[in-house]
């Protein structure tokens, strides 16, 4: 099922990094979490999720490890690396600046 709103690749990366910032999660949990917190607006298609996860792993921002899930099945957990944490900070900063600027323009009365 395609995502209900279009998410740019960079934004998706940022969301993923944020959701595992507090503690490691496995892929399904990440998707569910983002969906829940955004009140079902952002539904990550699995076709985008796993390639994104592996790309982030390839770039060295997240690290994967096999662990036991809630019902004791094997699942792959992703955690932030130090480099990933730095990347997340940088991206958050970018995002704030970008959205702030857009908001200014939109709020201005012409």
């Amino acid at each position, binding site marked *: 099922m395609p995502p209900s709103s279009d998410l740019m690749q960079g934004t998706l990366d940022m969301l993923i990094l944020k959701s595992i910032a507090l503690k490691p999660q*496995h*892929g399904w949990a990440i998707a569910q979490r983002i969906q829940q917190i955004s009140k079902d607006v952002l539904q990550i298609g*699995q076709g985008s999720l*796993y*390639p994104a996860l592996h790309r982030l792993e390839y770039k060295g921002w997240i690290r994967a490890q096999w662990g036991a899930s809630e019902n004791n*099945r094997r699942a792959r957990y992703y955690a932030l690396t130090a480099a990933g944490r730095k990347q997340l900070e940088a991206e958050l900063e970018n995002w704030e600046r970008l959205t702030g600027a857009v908001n200014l323009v939109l709020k201005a009365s012409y």
Partner: protein
Amino acid sequence: MLNDLRYRLHALSRRDRMEAELDEELRFHVECETEKYCRAGMSEEEAQRRARIAFGGHEQMKEDVREARGTSLLEQSWQDARYALRKLRKNPGFTTVAALTLALGIGASTAAFSLADAVLLQPLPYSHASRDVMVWGETPVGSFYGNVDLPFAAQEYQLYAGMQQAFQTIGVFRKKSFNLTGTSEPELQEGVEVSAGFFPALGGSAQLGRTITAQDDQAGHEHVAVLSHWLWQTHYHGDRNIVGKTVDVNGSPTTIIGVMPVSFVFPDGAGMPAGLDLPRRTAMWVPIALPPGAVGSNDMGLIGELKAGVTWAQLKQDLARYDARFIEQHPRAKGYWSRAVPLTEQAVTDTRLPLLLWMGAVLVVLLIACSNVAGLTLNRSVGRRKEFTLRGALGARRTRLMRQLTIENLLLASLGGGFGLLVAEASLWTVKRFGPATLPRLEDASLNFAVAAFALVITLGTGLFFGLTPAVGATRMNLAEALREGGQRSIGSVTAPRIRNGLLVLQVALAMVLVVAAGLLLRTFYDMLHTDAGFDATHVVTFELPLPASAQYADTNRMAQVYSEVLDRLAEIPAVQSAGFASVVPMGGETDSTIIRIPGRPATRQADAPGANYQFVSPGFFPAMGTPLEEGRDVAASDVLTAQRVTIVNRTMANLYWPGQDPVGKQVGVGMVKIPLRTIIGVVADTKQASLREPPSPEMYVPFTQNEIRTWPSMQTMQYALRLRGDDSGIAAAVRRAVDAVDPDLPVARFTRLRMMVDASMTADRFALLLLSGFGLLALVLAAVGMYGVIAYSVLQRTAEIGVRMALGAGRGDILGMVLRQGGVLALTGIGIGLLAAWMTTRLMTSFLYGVKAADPATFAAVAVLLLAVALAACIVPARRAMGVDPMVALRTE
């Protein structure tokens, strides 16, 4: 960056495990999703189904994941290669035909390149070869010896050696026969006598012992010899202690002073002008020991090593100085000049053009092979469009499919290339075994590194050439269109047939060129076989009787006596019908020649003087050879020095110098005034002397009993001809006995049937004909197969159209005409282009042709008709299939 590489390598090495892990991860996700739906209240089954739908296509995702990993290119290529291998195995017919075709083309090109490499590109095995130069005398164009490189005479060499400044060392060499006695049977070997500068000029050092020095090159010290490697191996069994031993050469004890390495074979006749008589294989070298003030005929080759820093212009100046001085001393020689040729160029003079032409022919064959395989691959890929479009629908990208096709074709090319190396090896072996011996350094041709690299480049080139074109055409996908048009009629793209037709036209044109060349050679060969040689070779045997240069045979009278005695004994052999001898029998080598003078004609400069070949004959020689005496009488035993001096001339000489007159009774003599004139007593028919190909030259035959000049021509050896009453196997032994009765130490050399000598003179032509005919036939077959493929496919595609036409009233004849017309148009286009190409290229072959011009219209027309016939024949089977189409069936499958 390094991390990146490490990750990729890591991914590659643990690929299987990573695949399994990915599978597990995705499965886990689906299970969680299922649970979610279950908890939402759906049934297990329903939940699973929705989970799977929500998840999307596994494979696509895995593909994306793999790509995200960055290893996809290598993985995919590996996968493609394995798939390609499987596909090739499943289509053994296509694979075999394509691989074989490629193997033939690549193999032939590699073999030809290896030959060219050995002969043209690899350096000569003499260490000073790059600075070595040979010098020849030239006469003005139009004179008797015009356009011919003349060897040096002893006096010319000594003059030049005394005044030259351009060379570090110069030396001369001259052919010499060696009568090796003392062993079981006296044996004749050929080699050269050389001056002291010979070995230093070439830079050759001996493998054992030493070479000839200035010390040896003087009277009293000249009974030494340097052996060639092959003689040392065959006759002296590679005796390591041979240096210092004494052997009997030409009646004198001679000390062996050295043995040359196997690579030193100079001179081997390669590229030397015809005017310089040389042994085919040099057995040994002895000193020439020219006395000061020596005078002789033009029979020596001159070779020298240039001084460091001397330019070509300086060399030419040096030679011009010598020319001026020589003309000062011999004013009648005005117009002569000297020409220098680098040794590297000299050695390949005869072979550069033929080799390059061969490479051209072989590359044409390769092109035909490539276009054939391109056509086959194109056919196959167009037939696989459904497969490709389906894969496209499943998510494969176009570049992926093109890459896969390219890999498939590269694999096919490699297969062809691998077999091609085998073909090349086999071809080289065949050429070495059966090829003409005139190719120098043939033994050096082998599959070396450079050659293998060439083969690789060719292979990859052909792979890409026939791989990309179909790949581009076949992967142009229009999903809806292709899947809509079911069955075999997935035509779609218009470019594929166009490419195929273009390839076919190219093949036909190339085949045309090769077959025309083969046809011209065929006519040459036929004309050579049927040309009037001027003698009858049936039941004629010849041999050479060289007299040793000992005191016993120092006097020319004594020599004449011996030859006469042997002749008498030979005539006594019952099997012999007639016998005679001459200086050189036809096909036996080159004769001496001279400037002549005819009384009553104005004196001319030496450069413009008339000339003729000049040799001795015995009575009975012409009858033995079957050469008809057209006028007058043969020489007789009564023609001795005390009687009138006589000579016999041939028809060419009679027509040249006494046109419209009867030459019998006229007088002619050698150029030197002090030698008296001779009276012509007879005219014989022309004979071919050196080869069947050459036009006859003017010939003067002089009785061997009237040798007044004594020093020239040499009577050292005579060639005997015996006409036998029938086949006789015991003749060799009978001849040996006859010669033994006169002197058991005389060797009987080169005993052979005249027929075989004639055949041997045609070896090169025969070989060329066989090869080129083989190529031509191959090209013809490939073109025919290509035509068949194109027409058959076209008929298949047009089945419905044919059905419609027949339903609308077309007869079977009309359908036949339609198909033949299609094939005919393609063939005629190819033939037209081929005619033009053949016309442009066969002119390069002119020097190999005899009796037929390079643009011979009869041959061109015949080949064009042949090709058209073959092309139409190739269309017959598909045409009949077209005629057999049942309109109802055809329309129904629409």
